[in-house]
């Protein structure tokens, strides 16, 4: 209680300038204030940098080919353009698909290898898709024949309307 000398107005005790209670209280306060300051900077940055996580992919139907251009038995490497947003830019991005008739349906295989995403290529003489990266091979129906992928080629939904083949593509 020697602190009493320094203390005019108070009745000397817990609120002396450096009493243990006061130190603890001030320590907690500093901790809380620092927490608020940290949140003020971390919050906005995390929200901003993580924003792509909240973005929803939207799908649209695209007209890619007129019906007569896809004869039965043929697998075609089809390119089409979609107007998409890429960051701040709006661009016409070219996409590719492998299309093939199967009965009265049309199959549309995504060229991205289901292993790690390289672009597969179709060799019509062999009737197979080949991935240049880790050696995956797929048959006409998109199923794995060899190599590391755990599943066959991804397919996109298709429909035939107005004599054209439409593909549902998510971006």
């Amino acid at each position, binding site marked *: 209680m020697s602190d009493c000398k320094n203390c005019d107005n108070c009745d000397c005790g817990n609120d002396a300038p450096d009493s243990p209670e006061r130190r603890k209280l001030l320590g907690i306060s500093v901790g809380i204030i620092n927490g608020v300051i940290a949140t003020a900077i971390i919050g906005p940055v995390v929200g901003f*940098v*993580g924003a*792509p*996580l909240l*973005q929803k*992919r939207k799908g649209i139907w695209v007209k890619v080919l007129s019906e007569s251009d896809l004869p039965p038995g043929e697998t075609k*490497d089809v*390119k089409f353009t979609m107007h998409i947003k*890429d*960051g*701040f*830019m709006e*661009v*016409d*991005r*070219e*996409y*590719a698909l492998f299309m093939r008739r199967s009965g009265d349906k049309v199959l549309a295989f995504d*060229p991205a290898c289901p*292993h*790690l*995403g*390289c*672009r597969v*290529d179709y060799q019509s003489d062999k009737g197979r898709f080949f991935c*240049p*990266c*880790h*050696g995956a091979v797929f048959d006409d129906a998109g199923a*794995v024949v060899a*190599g*590391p*992928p*755990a599943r066959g080629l991804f397919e996109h939904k298709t429909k035939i309307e107005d004599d054209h083949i439409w593909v549902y593509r998510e*971006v």
Partner: protein
Amino acid sequence: MSEDKKQVISPESPVETQAQNLTDSEQARLDRPKLSDWLELRLGWWGFVRKNLDEQMPAGVSWWQTLGNLLMTLLAFQFITGIALSMYYSSGPESAHASVKHINEGFISNIPIFGSINWGLAVRGIHVYGSSVLVCVTVLHILRVFFWGSYKKPRELTWLVGVLIFFVMLGFSFTGYLLPWDQKAYWATTVGTNMAGTIPGIGDSMLILIRGGSEVGSLTLTRFYAAHVMILPAALIILTALHLYLVRKHHIAGPVLPQKGATVPFWPNQLFKDAVVVFFGVGIVIYLAAVNPPGLEGVANPTGTDLVPRPEWYYLGLYEMLKIMPAGWELMATLIIPGIVSVGMILLPWLDKSKSRHPAMRQWIIISGTAIILMIGLMTLKGYLETPVHGEEGHGPAVEGQAAPDGEAEH
């Protein structure tokens, strides 16, 4: 004694200015101090320099201990060339490829006697080969520390920080590889980021966070650029400073078995060895940059079929492992094996419980370490021999005619 008097105001003892019987020149120096004296009084730099030059090395310290200094120099080279490159580089999908092409082709001047010099390509070459040699030397440095057992108490944290530096370095190469936005950049990044996507549960979110969207695009490029020139350099500077502080604090560990003989100061013997090694290390970088300057493939093209997949050479081992994994086992190659090796590296000082640093006293560690190193080496060699060398400038006729993504102007 007269010797003593002359040194009264040498940089080593600048404050003893009260001494009597100064000669005229000494008095003059006191009245109008040299810049070095002036600085010494305020910074104490000379003490710092002396402390480092006089740092005592245990007997038996040799050429193997010069690698750290070579690393420092190569890092300085990366920073300097990197800053220069960033003045001409443009990080958008419409401009990145063209800007690197401009670096490659737009800065040629004719110098009498020397002939034509391609400044842009020279700086880019130093940056590209510097990164490779840097990874090489880092691996040698790690191997030296591993076989000498120098990571043992009290140097566990020095090792830990070193491992983090190594990871940062791999991050530099992974992010830098995308920047030229050519075919190999685009596909290496597609595959590399997809690897993160295989992680169960969080894979999809990781993929989107890394790419800035579901596809490799403009936001991937700006993210990688930010990592390459802001985040990773900041991390590297902090980690390197910490590493060096710890190295100085605990001093060099010396040979596995203490050798007879007195300690030797760093200057002049060891510093000379360092200088020789740095000279040759830098020489290799300049030589490689001069004889085989880095090329540039056609602009990134997600629909082009002309890709020749080939990651940076030090990822070839991983690349081979992806090839040989049976269907459905890719998680082994993308996460589990690299994860085990990384965690093993981090935990090494705690996994190795032997007191002795001698290799014969820690056989399990040495044997498993050597096995892992050999495996990585063999896989890398296999990858090197089996993957075709990727094309130079304007590789692949297919690329020229095809529409480039985002309306790339150059082609």
